[in-house]
């Protein structure tokens, strides 16, 4: 589904990703952990080309993102992204946030888009907020809307960049529950998070990243119970 070959990314002189290679299978939930500044967000953002890799190759469903003939806007429709700070469109209502891209990008007719949006809002438990503006929602509600917005494009892959880090503790669960449902439905997911319980319960694979490389990867048990690399051990001892 996703194949990453020898990915490098630098910002000017700063080398952020230093040769990352990995694969994500269909339906797999990969949890990415690592210290601040290790390049987790940059890696995730390379996957949908919000950042342009300096070298290396990313192949999504058999299409190389580096191939000039690949239509990036088309590929991005299949890759939903959820951000730490939600990035809802503040000038649009909740339901407009969700229907905008299906209507404008996919050319879906507005009635179908609305129906689909209401279905998704129902799924994330926010049907009653359809006509509210984002500013009137709590953080947890905003993030659930953001997930619904991404799902409205029927993506095959979902990327989450610390989706609960900006939330008050009592709202974290409502967002993680939505993500768990999604994983149970077979969505392919790459999740950057420090929620270790989520990683254990939902993750198929955990990758530990530090200083731009993947130091260690394995099942949640392998990484959390029997980490091999000293850096992994040190990191885990700090956050667990």
């Amino acid at each position, binding site marked *: 589904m996703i194949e990453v070959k020898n990915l490098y990314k630098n910002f000017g002189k700063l080398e952020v990703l230093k040769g990352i290679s990995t694969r994500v299978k269909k339906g797999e939930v990969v949890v990415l952990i690592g210290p601040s500044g290790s390049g987790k967000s940059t890696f995730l953002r390379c996957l949908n080309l*919000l950042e342009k890799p300096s070298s290396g190759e990313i192949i999504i469903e058999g299409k190389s993102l580096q191939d000039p003939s690949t239509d990036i806007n088309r590929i*991005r429709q299949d890759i*939903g992204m959820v*951000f730490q*700070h939600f990035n809802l*469109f*503040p000038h649009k209502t909740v339901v407009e946030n969700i229907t905008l*891209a299906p209507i404008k990008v996919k050319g879906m007719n507005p009635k179908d888009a609305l129906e689909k949006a209401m279905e998704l809002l129902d799924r994330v438990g926010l049907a009653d907020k359809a006509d509210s503006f984002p500013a009137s929602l709590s953080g947890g509600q905003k993030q659930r809307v953001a997930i619904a*917005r991404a799902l409205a494009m029927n993506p095959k892959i979902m990327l989450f960049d610390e989706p609960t880090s900006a939330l008050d503790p009592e709202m974290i669960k409502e967002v993680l529950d939505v993500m768990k449902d999604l994983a149970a439905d077979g969505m392919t997911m790459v999740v950057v998070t420090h929620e270790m319980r989520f990683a254990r319960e939902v993750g198929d694979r955990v990758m530990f990243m530090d200083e731009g490389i993947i130091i260690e990867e394995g099942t949640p048990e392998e990484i959390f119970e029997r980490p091999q690399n000293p850096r992994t051990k040190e990191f885990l001892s700090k956050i667990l």
Partner: protein
Amino acid sequence: MVMDFSIVLPYINLFFKGALTAFEITLLAVVIGIVIGTLVGIGKMSGILPVRLICSTYVEVIRGTPLLVQLLIFYFGLPQILGFTLPEFTAAVLALGINSGGYVAEIVRGGILAVDKGQMEAARSLGMSYAQAMRYIILPQAFKKMIPPLGNEFVTLLKDSSLATTIGFPELTRAAQIVAANTYRPFEPYLTAAGFYLVMTVGFSWVMAAIERRLSASD
């Protein structure tokens, strides 16, 4: 010498007509300014170097030369190339509009830069093209931030429309000139013109303040 505003009264229609014309010139110029300014403002942030250079040069030239000289070029200079003279009204609207475009471009750029970067990323991650993201997500939000400076630009332009007098166009300042010449009393007609400008600019500022209040209430 005592002031006697009654000498202006027989000509008062001239002032009202002049004020209306000044307003028309300004409104049309602002529309042209917003169209040009939006394109040039976005162009200044383009990833394509030549586009960026052209747009930056435009802004520099417009802002680095006097509006009066630009107006004279349009009315007296261009005919040399075109072979015909633009009507005064057209020349005034074009010169003011193209001038305003340079200033609006900076307002647009500032407005766009003030929109959170995450908005563009969210839009692009949903598969929107750059143009779609601009149109549906960035510009509507930027426009809200641009309203106060655009209001100022309108007021500036309204006052600058008085420069059209120099090409002989019968707007408000020209009306005062005519009345001054006919009555041999310049003070009252020019004060009257100033009063007309003031009423228009202050009135406009009130309207803008009301719009801003309504927009900020929706946040």
